[in-house]
């Protein structure tokens, strides 16, 4: 890369950061103006700030030669300049266009839209058509840059998160220096004790030991305080995560035809940015869940004597010195336990009898079951019945916990407890077949030695009585598939077990020994190991050993899966063995290749078609187990294809997944009418999402 192009790409990188800041300020301002709840004085301050931000961004965009953004900003500048003069908020109907303009700016910044874009022209036209908008002036009079607002220069420097992260890693390495020094001091003291007789040698050793002990203490203090400082530097106020929520709530409510107010309290609490990043998706999911399942339509709310507008509120609160609790409550309908039970019975998770006997608390826990959805249609938003499971897993992966309370008719409360920092994680070190593993202390119920005489066989499986209940007993090494070591003859009379508790279920794991409990720092396994079965990450011990961290909820699933497949070896397994065939209909070559490779990597045999006509021709001739189709296609679109497939005897029952960029409620409904089984929006499209849906259908 030439020096010039290198500079240009660096410049663009910088611009990205800057543009995002301007955009965020404008977005926050727009949302406030649209609400229209603040006084006139506040309004004019907000209008002024949007005007300045647009102006600054225009200049910056010109510097990196992104004319699309420049033109958008110029139009916005003109609109808000008019607002300033007339001292009033922009017209209500203009807001949607303004939001679209901001979205486009983000896309243009990331280079995800080509420069001459139809949408850009549309938006520009709409912006110009705004009533009361003066024609665009070629160069607006000079305005002071937005940064010089009355706010004093804040004492901050901008540093990339990656840079800060790498400084943190360096600081963390110092921990080993600290530990090595402590060990050195201890060794010297031991030597000193051994040489109690030899006079001067002993004296020398004594002074060395003292110095080493003192130095080790000092080094330790310095390392710890440096780490604490850097850890704090990695903390951000929770509000940075919440910036995207007002907009999301607004859009989603509009799409669902509901009226929702979003409230936040305590967003100043600081939290490790890495925890925040992990918590973002689960939180989005739960909020979406509250809007699409919790809050009722305005009409329904009025019928129940509630205000038309529902409220979803988030409270952020520091608890226990090292944790943050997020309480997300809505004043909607609550979880319909009857419906949940019915769905669970329909899916075969429990029998009618079990369902009837279930108390409300346990019934509520059913919502975490994978594959359970009370929505008739699988959509990407929620109701896939997968979201909450994944949300819970992600929260647990950072050492957090998710709980839910629901009052029928009055609302649902989700509580998420997360650690302030990733470092505050305690784990139990155990050894199994010669290998060391860490198990999160939060999931450890108890540890004890079990006597052979305590083991009973229940339905041909080993179990032990704990607190009056029979708890399954398995060997950890068996679950993980570790090779047996020779000395494990199985002849011992007693051995240690560790009992894990996940969502109310206990399982006892037989191990070689418990090595102790300590603070561990969770590290990801690297990009190549995106997600593993039973292992959630790794940590580095004092001596430099790398130790895998086990994932308790995976372990429990592995145990129940092994139990289910044990009796008949050729049950569901043999069905897997025959390759399932999938037809992909998609006109875009990129999307087609992407879908094909994702499905093939999961072991499916994939055939492709470029439109509905070609797809239907293939379906007539060949046998397929599932159809994945785009909606917008030439000749025959996805809806038409669905109807054709349903109307043709051979394919009437073929599972159909629609994958599309159209994400609106009407499209989804149109999809149901046409006979699709699932609907995934491309915007939220990712690999596991698609595979989960496909695997649920075949």
């Amino acid at each position: 890369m030439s020096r010039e192009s290198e500079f240009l790409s660096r410049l663009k990188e910088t611009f990205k950061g800057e543009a995002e800041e301007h955009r965020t300020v404008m977005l926050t301002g727009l949302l406030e103006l649209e609400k229209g709840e603040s006084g006139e004085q506040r309004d004019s301050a907000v209008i002024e700030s949007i005007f300045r931000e647009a102006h600054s961004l225009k200049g910056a965009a010109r510097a990196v030669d992104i004319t699309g953004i420049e033109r958008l900003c110029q139009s916005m500048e003109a609109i808000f300049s008019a607002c300033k003069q007339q001292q009033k908020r922009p017209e209500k109907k203009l807001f949607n266009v303004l939001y679209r303009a901001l979205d486009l700016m983000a896309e243009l910044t990331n280079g995800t839209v080509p420069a001459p874009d139809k949408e850009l022209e549309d938006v520009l036209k709409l912006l110009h058509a705004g009533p009361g908008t003066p024609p665009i002036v070629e160069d607006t009079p000079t305005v002071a840059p937005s940064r010089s607002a009355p706010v004093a220069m804040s004492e901050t420097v901008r540093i990339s998160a990656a840079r800060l992260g790498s400084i943190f890693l360096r600081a963390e390495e110092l921990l080993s220096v600290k530990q090595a020094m402590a060990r050195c001091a201890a060794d010297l003291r031991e030597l000193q004790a051994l040489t109690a007789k030899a006079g001067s040698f002993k004296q020398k050793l004594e002074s060395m030991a003292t110095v080493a002990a003192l130095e080790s203490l000092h080094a330790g203090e310095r390392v710890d305080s440096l780490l604490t400082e850097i850890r704090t530097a990695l903390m951000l106020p929770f509000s940075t995560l919440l910036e995207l929520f007002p907009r999301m709530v607004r859009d989603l409510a509009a799409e669902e035809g509901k009226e929702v107010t979003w409230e936040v309290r305590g967003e100043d609490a600081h939290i490790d940015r890495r925890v925040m990043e992990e918590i973002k998706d689960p939180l989005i999911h739960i909020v979406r869940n509250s809007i699409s399942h919790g809050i009722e339509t305005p009409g329904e709310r009025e019928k129940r004597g509630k205000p038309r507008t529902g409220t979803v509120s988030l409270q952020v609160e520091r608890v226990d010195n090292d944790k943050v609790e997020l309480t997300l409550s809505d004043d909607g309908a609550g979880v319909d336990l009857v419906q949940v039970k019915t769905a669970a019975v329909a899916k075969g998770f429990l029998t009618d009898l079990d369902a009837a006997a279930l108390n409300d608390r346990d019934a509520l826990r059913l919502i975490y079951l994978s594959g359970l959805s009370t929505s008739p249609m699988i959509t990407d938003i929620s109701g896939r019945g997968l979201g909450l499971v994944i949300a819970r897993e992600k929260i647990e992966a950072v050492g957090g916990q998710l709980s839910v309370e629901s009052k029928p008719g009055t609302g649902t409360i989700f509580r998420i407890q997360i650690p302030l920092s990733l470092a505050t994680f305690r784990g139990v070190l155990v050894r199994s077949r010669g290998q060391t593993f860490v198990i999160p202390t939060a999931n450890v119920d108890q540890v004890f030695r079990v006597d052979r005489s305590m083991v009973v066989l229940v339905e041909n499986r080993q179990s032990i009585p704990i607190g009056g209940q029979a708890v399954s007993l398995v060997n950890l090494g068996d679950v993980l598939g570790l090779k047996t070591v020779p000395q494990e003859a199985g002849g011992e009379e007693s051995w240690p077990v560790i009992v894990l508790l996940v969502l109310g279920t206990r399982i006892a794991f037989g191990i070689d020994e418990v090595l102790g409990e300590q603070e561990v720092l969770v590290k990801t396994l690297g990009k190549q190991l995106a997600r593993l079965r039973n292992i959630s990450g790794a940590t580095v011990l004092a001596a430099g050993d790398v130790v895998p961290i086990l994932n308790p909820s995976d372990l429990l699933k592995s145990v129940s899966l092994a139990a289910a497949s044990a009796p008949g070896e050729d049950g569901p397994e043999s069905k897997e063995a025959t390759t399932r065939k999938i037809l992909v209909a998609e006109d875009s070559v990129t999307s087609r290749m992407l879908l094909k490779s994702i499905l093939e990597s999961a072991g499916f045999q994939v055939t492709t078609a470029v439109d509905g006509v070609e797809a239907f021709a293939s379906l007539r001739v060949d046998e397929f187990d599932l159809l994945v189709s785009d909606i917008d296609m030439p000749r025959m679109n996805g809806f038409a294809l669905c109807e054709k497939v349903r109307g043709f005897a051979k394919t009437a029952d073929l599972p159909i997944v629609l994958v599309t960029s159209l994400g609106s409620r009407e499209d989804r409904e149109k999809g149901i009418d046409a006979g699709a089984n699932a609907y995934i929006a491309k915007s939220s499209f990712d690999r596991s999402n698609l595979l989960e849906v496909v695997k649920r259908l075949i």
Partner: protein
Amino acid sequence: MGSGVSIDDQERKILKERARTLAVVPPTALGDGELIRALRFSLGAETYAVESKHIREVFPLPPLTPLPCVPPFVRGIINVRGRIVSIIDLKSILGLPDTELSPSCSVIILQSKGNEFGLLADEISGLSAIPISSIQPSLPTLTEVRAEFLWGVTAEGLVLLDAGKLLSDRKLVIDETVGSTA
């Protein structure tokens, strides 16, 4: 006298001609110019090479922690200055006979924008400059898996791996949940 001048002209002409000839770089001297730098290393009895632009660093194999629940080509994880990096065993991917880890083993860390892992190498032999034109497509006798990750073979019989392909192949990225594979 006049003839003297004309000889000078002639001489100048010849000299110019020679200069022009000399100025032209012979097209085949360096194998069409473009060279790639590649790191040579051994896997069992065979020597392979990988283009250096994909390499982040190379160092002797630190203590390796094996992982359960991974395919055999993932040998384990190591600690690289506070980061965990996974180690891939090419022998398992290329179908070469398995050998024990020895003190002379090294790790070649490959990195791209979306992926990073270490390759296990029995021994590092050195760097080579290889003219791109000398790279022949890989031998037809190779099995499908082997051919997939090979760029080609040089005239000297050096087997060049396609590091870009290794880094971008989704098959080599483990993304599993309980029940998804079993």
